[in-house]
């Protein structure tokens, strides 16, 4: 197994863990962390799989950089929203009832 594939396999594990976290965890902060784990998994796979030719392929590196920027932005937004929700309601989870208006 080449080093690239090791990265990719680790990425797959991270991605699955993150996904499970999103589905199973209620606490907003941990859920946001789970997203970051999931994202890192995807980036690892992207970089890992693209190393077939031996040397590093610059294109996925550039992609991952862009992806990290996007991930940072979304994390910031998610954190801001979670804080706002906490300030307004004191809750750190999404309850089933607030999908109904009023």
């Amino acid at each position, binding site marked *: 197994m080449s080093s690239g594939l090791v990265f990719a396999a680790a990425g797959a594990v991270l991605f699955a863990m993150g996904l499970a976290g999103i589905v199973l965890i209620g606490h907003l902060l941990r859920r946001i962390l789970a997203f970051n784990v999931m994202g890192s998994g995807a980036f690892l796979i992207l970089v890992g799989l693209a190393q*077939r030719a031996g040397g590093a392929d610059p294109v996925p590196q550039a992609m991952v950089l862009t992806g990290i920027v996007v991930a940072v932005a979304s994390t910031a937004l998610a954190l801001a929203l979670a804080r706002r929700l906490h300030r307004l309601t004191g809750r750190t989870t999404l309850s089933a009832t*607030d999908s109904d208006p009023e």
Partner: protein
Amino acid sequence: MTDPVAWLILLPLVWATGAFVLGPGRGARLAIGALLVQCALALQLAVEVLAYGGRTHPVGGWGAPLGIDLAADGLSAVMLLLAQALALPLAVYARAYFAENAPTVRYFWPLAGFLLAGINALFLAADLFNLYVTLELVGLAAVGLVAAGGTARQVAAALRYLFAALAGSLLYLLGVALIYGAYGTVSLETLAPLVDARAPAAVWIAGGLMLAGLMLKTAIFPFHYWLPPAHGGAPAPVSALLSALVVKASFYLILRLSLDVFAPLAAAAATVLGLLGAAAIVWGSWQALRTDHIKMLVAWSTVAQLGYLFLVFPLLAPDGLALQAGGMQAIAHGLAKAAMFAAAGVLMLATGRDTLVGLAGVAGRVPLTLFAFGLAGVTLMGLPPSGGFLAKWLLIEAALTHGQWGWVAVVIGGGLLAAAYVFRVLRQAFLLAPADSRFHPVPRSMEWTAFVLAAASVLLGLRGVELMALLARGAA
């Protein structure tokens, strides 16, 4: 200098930034002015594509793989036209709306600008990774808009929406990673001849992951859970933008990919997508029939109408009927749903209540708005003469041509269900007003923009020849 392709992305970014600096008052004027130009640009692009076919535009002259390519063909020209045509009246509407509802206005114009830039870029993106980036841009701006009101309910809805959107785009990104691993490219043009039915398992998995991610973002049944609170809870102009446009963006992506790169794989998922569409129609309509709130009713109706878009997939064939049906439905629903949310906003403003019961007697007070709601309803029900009717006609024709009877029943039944929930509102409005009801005056510009959008969705049913010709240009 005036290649509309680049300016359609640049211009909204400029006015979004401008609106942030200038503040809501002057920002709104700037936005409306710029949107007029965008409409002209989209029209110019549509005319050019119709005349000369699709084209590619390397941004900054760099070219793929390190630079970014933008590509415009018939399908993207149609969607761009729809986006600008929706955004302009909604901007006029929003300006009057936020004059009445002050707190949310600060972030509306910048976020709307970024949203539109993202959407335009998405319709023009030529490779899988740029599609991911634009998809995220759209998602983040949309989440911001949902939360802009700042109440606990809106923030919760926004978070729910954000999680769905992020999960969706990460699934999509994972798919992109697998595709790059398999073929070493993400350009749609280069990929198209490489992918075939004997593709390695990784590619099939990638296709599945991307599809799942996009379905989550399109809110097709059973991934629709985040949509009604987000769309039903947001301020009316935001709901209109989201329901009419944003969910169409990820649908456009599914359609584009299954027409093009993943065409050999798409057949495998087509029936499942169709069945989910059918389930969405039934479930969305059923919920719309049960809810007591006007905007929730309209939001559930979006869930149902998205189902029609997914009925297209099992019927995709070289005869192009289903593609035409999908394009027509996307446009007709976009216009009608924008009109309906706009009208719902007016109704809520006029009655001061957000429930169906509170609507008694509005037929006499805001007749123009009710008329707009009714016209939009005609499109959603698929009754003639309207764009929705043509879409339904094309769908039924496609289903009958391929001998797939089940879809005919779904389309017809869905239309009747839509009639049932639309007339819930109209019935209530025609009732006599209770003696103690008070009506607030509503700005005329809000009433008229709702009406213009609704009338457009109906008039579309009188002439679809050019649109269909444009749709057939260079797509697939």
